[in-house]
């Protein structure tokens, strides 16, 4: 499929933004599962999978 220069540029910007958002979500997830103050949250989730 042939894409225009403009389409490629906007696809790159979207991919870049999406990757930044995914990194942010990973960081929030990590914090929720490692913060001692959120231990009950972590246990609640893990119990669901036992």
């Amino acid at each position, binding site marked *: 499929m042939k894409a225009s220069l403009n*389409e490629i540029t906007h696809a790159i910007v*979207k991919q870049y933004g999406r990757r930044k958002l995914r990194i942010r*979500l990973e960081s929030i997830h990590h914090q929720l599962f490692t913060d001692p103050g959120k231990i009950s949250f972590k246990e609640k*989730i893990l119990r669901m999978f036992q």
Partner: protein
Amino acid sequence: MGGTGDNLPVPPTYLYMNATTLSASVVEIQGFATEDIPGLYEETFPVVAAFVAKMGGSPDDAKDIFHDALIIFFEKDIRVENVAAYIMGIAKHLWLRKYQDDKHRVSLDDFERTIAIPEDEHFPVAARLYRLISTAGKVCLDLLQAFYYEKRSAESIASEFHYSDAHSASVQKHKCLQKIRTLVKEKSMDYESFVE
């Protein structure tokens, strides 16, 4: 804890907010205040995780499908009354897309059936090209994704990126668009090789 005059608990605002409820000074992703995302996450992830666990998935499955659902939700840039229910609906669709054999085990209600899930990108950028551009054009991509992906206001972007005003930020946006276009052009003589 806050409450109404009848002492009823007030639902978390991020579950019901939309772009119009936010202050222009708040940093937003698709109209959603970034500072509210952890709260939304903590409130909504257990709902999606319970669904994934019921379907026999793993904690990692739950995380992956939840992140994909959040990204789709933010990219839709829409206003909904119940954000949590909407994200749950997206997650169900994503599960069904991945595990079509579970059709008989997952029931979508009328509201969930109205949720449209986008197909894959029309122009996925080749990994090699993306790596080259995202390294060489990082500063510009940070600015451009704030405009086009996060859909933030020029005022908000000017403030974060230390431009004197919204006009200066917009001028820089156009310069950056040109820079990325030039970089793309330089990295290959054949645009067809950019897409996979």
